[in-house]
């Protein structure tokens, strides 16, 4: 099941120069999922990106950073101290250099194991921005639901007339 809610929150450093943008994604049911976001770097060789969740809610987390249809990097998550996270740093990874201002697609895959509770994952970008990608599937699902309701209503009314 895909995400239901994306709560975006820009977390700004209160008193200091430290600034990191963050975004939360929610998984309401257990199982594998895929979430997509847009990421841009604000300066060369400075972006740090991490995706995380608590291990009791996410048994696996990984992400791919895409430039159009080209995969820039793939990061597999690790579990440590009760949290599962995947991290990429454009500062320390000399093999990769992101172009500032360019939009990359962040594709997060994982397995949610939340029982009786919503699993909340977090995306944090330092020296860059992150924003949600509107999902065509949600519109398709909405239309399908609407169509189904219409069909049921039609069937009911025709039965009554007969």
């Amino acid at each position, binding site marked *: 099941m895909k995400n239901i809610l994306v709560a975006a929150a820009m977390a700004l450093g209160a008193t200091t120069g430290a600034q990191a943008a963050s975004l939360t994604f929610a998984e309401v049911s257990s199982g594998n999922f895929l979430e997509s976001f847009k990421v841009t770097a604000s300066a060369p060789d400075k972006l740090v990106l991490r995706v995380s969740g608590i291990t009791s809610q996410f048994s696996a987390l990984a992400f791919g950073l895409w430039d159009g249809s080209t995969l820039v990097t793939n990061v597999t998550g690790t579990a440590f101290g009760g*949290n599962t996270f995947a991290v990429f740093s454009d500062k320390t990874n000399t093999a990769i250099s992101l172009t500032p201002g360019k939009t990359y697609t962040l594709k997060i895959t994982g397995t949610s194991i939340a029982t009786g509770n919503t699993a909340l994952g977090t995306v944090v970008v330092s020296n860059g921005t992150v924003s949600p990608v509107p999902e065509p599937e949600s519109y398709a699902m909405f239309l399908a639901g609407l169509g189904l309701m219409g069909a049921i209503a039609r069937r009911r009314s025709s039965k009554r007339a007969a």
Partner: protein
Amino acid sequence: MNLSVIKKLAVAVSIAVSAVAAHAASYSFDSLSNTQSKNVNVSGDFSDTFTFTLPSTFSGVQGSYLAFDYGSDLIANFSFGTGSNTLVSGVTLSSNTSAAGIDIASYSHKFNLTGGKTYWFTLAGSATDANYTVTLAPVPEPETYALMLAGLGLLGVAARRRKSK
């Protein structure tokens, strides 16, 4: 010097001391009926306090911190309690330096709590340029699961009866 001057002086000193903590913020999760998380940016010394009330249908909480320091000197201590009672104190988060050259501190624990009560927890330490995420997931009482399953079963039976009719 009379007594009131000394008192005033003492107050002034205590204010000055409390101002030393660079980042001392308070955050509220209100009533914790579902998983909630918060991201905070810190640099220098910090001491941040979070409060939440556990609804009566829950018997505990899975509390978690994940802190990333883009510098290298992350120190973070965790304490937890209710009112003036400290239940857990001074838990230093497990920390390591990842391959990406970032200091990471991580801690997660399941606390058995009383539903309807208000709790607080504090994360205090120092960092160069850090961002931390706090996630709180309420743990449902076993009866809640049983009730949910019973409800589901009832729905199934009702659907079956309707079909056979």
